[in-house]
């Protein structure tokens, strides 16, 4: 089990109903964590349409969960 903070942005935050949450998860990687949160919040996005970041840097879906880290799921961007 790892305790992490998860950040949500844009429509993902609207779906989650919160901008961030602290959760404990037994997922082995970020992909697994997203699957758990997707079923809890009903996210419409499949993981392959999102990017993921750990502690302010882009990460890979296969990366493991580090205790105390901050994880962000990043829906398609629309700046500019």
């Amino acid at each position: 089990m790892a305790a992490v903070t998860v950040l949500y942005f844009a429509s993902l935050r609207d779906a989650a109903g919160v901008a961030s949450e602290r959760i404990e998860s037994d997922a082995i990687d970020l992909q697994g964590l997203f699957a758990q949160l997707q079923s809890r919040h009903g996210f419409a996005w499949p993981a392959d349409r999102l990017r993921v970041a750990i502690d302010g840097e882009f990460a890979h879906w296969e990366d493991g969960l580090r205790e105390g880290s901050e994880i962000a799921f990043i829906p398609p961007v629309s700046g500019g």
Partner: protein
Amino acid sequence: MKRFQLSDTPIRIEPLRDSLCHQTAGAFASFEGWVRDHNEGRVVLGLHYEAYVALAEKEGERIVEEAMRRFDIVEARCVHRIGELRIGELAVWVGVSAAHRGAAFDACRHIIDEVKSRVPIWKQERYREGDMGWLHPAAAAAGKD
């Protein structure tokens, strides 16, 4: 000096432009993104930009630094607004100075293309009918706006 910045207040163009002046630079290209009053057939009253600030600042800086290495340019900067914007307001500014115009144009266009596709910033439009919508363009539509 940071070459990429997020700003929650209106972007002031003149000091940005002046910061790119250099005696060896004969060419300057700039791009501005303005808030339009419509998008995909709907009337837009205003919009809100949200950013994942920590990562947006890093990724934006990487983009401009990459352009500094990749193109034969003198200086480059980009500023992106966050927060509430009105129609006509400046949402993003890119400026590039170079000895010659080809590199200035190419680098300027490269920077805005990369910023739009890579920097974690999201646009929420507010429509005449009272509803709002987040824009999450599919990768296939990238490069259109």
